[in-house]
Structures are given as structure tokens and as C-alpha cells.
């Protein structure tokens, strides 16, 4: 489903962000991506949702190949991916309902199908009564739930979460993590970048540890650490 083969990413000013990474994430898997700041976690996620292309090597996501994909192919791929960020990235002048609906509208979903689906998603993320609230009227945890609902509108095969709990308190963090587990249990793969060791300890999901642009440990492949 997601396959990185000998992927390196170099930036002109900051140098090598990813160094010869080879990795496979299977359908329906839940994987943590961890490591200190600057270790390459976010770069790797950006390569997966093809916001950037590798300097060398190849990223293949559900049949879309980074070396061949046109901009229109990337747009199509993103309709089957969900992405959430630490800073939520909601449109402040639209309600929670409108933020979620917007993601359906831009992908050309039938108009009549949008309200019911948005309401169902709001219920799924525990915000059934807050559809008319604007982002500033919601707590951080609630805003992240709206962002997750938006990421789920097109029934993605994978949810990419770049430090989704980084701005949240413990209680909100637990709530978001529980939501991500439920989403994964329903069949959607989740790749979550995080610094939160406690979260990783509380579950037995695959953990991929990065350092200076390399994968230095992978719980699914202990030989990586050995090498």
C-alpha cells in the first residue's frame, strides 16, 4: 500500500532530511513514526501524500508512483488519503460542518449526499451537536476531531497524522488516540508521527523510529535495528 524504496530527500539549504529509507506499510496497519525533531518524520509523511517528491528513490502509494505522478494524479491520490496536522488547518470562517463539507465539495461529491455524510462523520468523531460551531469556538481536541472528520470524508485507505496530539492536553490526546484506534479498527490504515512515548507504550502497534533521516528501529522488523 505504501512503499518507500531507497528514498532520500535533500533540501538545498538544510541538507539531507531522509537518507536511503526503505519501508513498507501494509493495508489496515497502524504504525507510529517516532524520533526527535528534525529526524525526518514530517518529511517522510509529506513524501507519502506527495506534497514533495524524493531527491532519489521511489515512493509508491496505492499504485501512484512519485517518479511518474502528474499533478492531477496527486490530486486523485489525495482523495483517497486523509491527512491531519498538529495545527488542525481548518478554515476559520467556516463552521465545523462547512469545513468538512468543503472537502467533499472540492472533490465533486454529489451535493445531496453531503449533509448526511457530514452529520454521520460529526457523530463518529463525537461532535454531533457542534456542527454549527466555528473553529475558534471549539477546544483544541474538538478542532482536531473536526480535522479528522474532514480527513475521513472520502473514506480514505490511510489516515496520515503528523503529530495530531502535539498541541493537546493529556485528556484530549487520549480521546484523539482512541478515535484513531476506532478508525483503524474499521479498516483504515493509520500512520501517526508522534513524540508521545506514553501513547506508544499503551498500545502494541508497530513503531518506526527515525534518527537523522534514517530508520533506526522498526518493531515489525527487528533486523533493522540490528543492522
Amino acid at each position, binding site marked *: 500500500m505504501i512503499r518507500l524504496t531507497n528514498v532520500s530527500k535533500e533540501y538545498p539549504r538544510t541538507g539531507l532530511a531522509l537518507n536511503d529509507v526503505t519501508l513498507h506499510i501494509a493495508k489496515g496497519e497502524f504504525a507510529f513514526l517516532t524520533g526527535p525533531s528534525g529526524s525526518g518524520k514530517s518529511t517522510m509523511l509529506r513524501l507519502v501524500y506527495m506534497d514533495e517528491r524524493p531527491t532519489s528513490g521511489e515512493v509508491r502509494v496505492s499504485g501512484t508512483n512519485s517518479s511518474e505522478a502528474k499533478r492531477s494524479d496527486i490530486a486523485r491520490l489525495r482523495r483517497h488519503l486523509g491527512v491531519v496536522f498538529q495545527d488542525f488547518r481548518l*478554515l476559520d470562517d467556516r463552521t465545523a460542518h462547512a469545513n468538512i463539507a468543503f472537502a467533499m465539495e472540492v472533490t465533486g461529491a454529489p451535493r445531496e449526499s453531503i449533509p448526511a455524510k457530514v452529520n454521520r462523520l460529526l457523530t463518529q468523531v463525537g461532535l454531533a451537536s457542534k456542527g454549527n460551531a466555528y473553529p475558534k469556538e471549539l477546544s483544541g481536541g474538538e478542532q482536531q476531531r473536526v480535522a479528522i472528520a474532514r480527513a475521513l470524508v472520502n473514506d480514505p485507505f490511510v489516515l496520515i497524522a503528523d503529530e495530531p496530539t502535539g498541541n493537546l492536553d493529556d485528556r484530549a490526546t487520549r480521546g484523539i488516540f482512541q478515535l484513531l484506534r476506532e478508525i483503524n479498527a474499521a479498516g483504515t490504515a493509520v500512520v501517526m508521527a508522534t513524540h508521545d512515548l506514553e501513547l506508544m507504550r499503551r498500545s502494541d502497534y508497530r513503531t518506526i523510529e527515525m534518527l537523522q533521516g534514517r530508520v533506526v528501529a522498526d518493531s515489525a522488523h527487528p533486523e533493522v535495528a540490528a543492522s
Partner: protein
Amino acid sequence: MRLALREALIAFRRAPLLSVLGIVTIAFSLFAFGLFGLVALNLRDALQRTEERVEIAGYIADGTAPEAVAAAMGDIGAFPEVAHVDFVSQDSALARAKSELGEFGDVFEPGVLPASIEVRLKPNARDPQSVKRVADRIATYTFIDDVRYAEDWVVKLYQIRTVATVVGLVLGLAFAAVAVIIIGATIRMAVLARGREIAIMRLVGATDGFVRAPFLIEGFVKGVLGGGLALFLTWLAAALISRYFVQASFFGPGLATLGVLSGALLGLAGSAVSVGRHLRRI
């Protein structure tokens, strides 16, 4: 399309000041261009009116048979450069001189002024070479004593017209370029102000065409409104000049529509370029 229209409307509502600023910038850029156009138009009209006065007079010898003069006028009227041929009798010449000289008109005795053939040329034949060519041909008639036209004046007028055309083209292009740059910068501001929204649209899988559509609509509408405002300001300027200084012509309906359409085109092209550049970077 419906969604693109809604998004364009939201953009207007969300940043009304920026939108108004955009429209006013487009309006003033086009207004400057419009004022220049107004000057060029009135200069062209003035030159045209002056050029229409270019005429060649062939003075007829006394005692020439009217049939010979009539035949020559038929010939001259058929020259490709000639628009109009008139016969001015001795009496008419005297009457005209008296009216032009006013109280000094009495110095002329009847029969003192010769009869003449007056020739006016077509607009495309008022250059010095054509004027001289026609004058020389008229002079070949045996009963023509003398041929007069303001040779120096024709040359000068032609030079003024050439300079005015070149200066007009250069200034016009410069004004248009400045308008394009200013309008492009204004629209770029609007695009940058919505960078976050564009990034989110791309993130959830919007195609470039979809992202572009609301900006193109917005640019087009701003262009039409800016063009309309510029047209009104130019009309107002023309009206004030006519009232307080000198009678000034205004653009005809065709040119006025072209002005508004060029505003729309500038808005559309400015948006397309700005949003295209922005999209290439994300």
C-alpha cells in the same frame, strides 16, 4: 461552476477591503490609461481636422473656356488621391476675400482675383509626396497659371502626425504595462491572502482547475467593475475638460466597451498568472 461562484463570493465577503482595493487599483490603472487614450483620441481628431484643410489650389488663366475647366475638373476628380474638386469663380473668390478681410475687403476690385480649382485629398493621400504629385499634375494643364499649397505646412503636419503616432504607441504600451503590473500585484495579494485555503483545497484533493476557477471569476468580476469605474472616471474627466477648458471628444460605444473588456481581460489574466505561479510553488 456553482461552487466556484460561491467561493468567489465568499472571498469578496471575507476580505471586502482587499476586494475594493483591488477594484480601485484596477480602476485607477485603467483610468490613467483612459486619460492617455482621451488625449490621444483628441489629438488624433485635431490632426484629422487640420489635415482635412489640406488643399491644392490651381489658378485659372483669364479667358479660359468653361468647357476646358469642366473637362479638367472631371479628370482631376478621377485621380486616385483626390476626394473632392471645386470650382471657385472670380466672383466667389472676391466674396470670400472680402468676408475674410473684413474692413480691408474693399481693396479688391472686381476681376482682380483669378478663378481657381480647389482640390481636397483623401485621408490616405495627405502625405507630402502625394500632395506634391497631385499639385504637379494639376500644373500640367495649360490654362493653369499657378498651383499653390502650403508645402512646408504639409511636411510639418505629416511629421507631427508621425511623431504623435510613435509617442502614442510607446506611451500607450508603457501605460498598459504599468496597469498590468499593478493589477497583477493586487491580484497576487488576494491570492497570497488565501494561501492557507488553497493549501487545504490541494490537500483534500482539489485539482488545479478547481482551485483556479474561483480566482478567475474573482479576477474577471474585479476587472469588469474596475474597468467600469475607470470608464466613468474618464468620462467625468472629459466632461470637466469640456466644461472648463476645451471641447473634448469621448470614446465611442465600441472603444468604451473595449475599455471595460480590457479591464476584465486584465483581471482574468492577472488572476490566472498569479494563482498559476502560486500553484506551481505548492
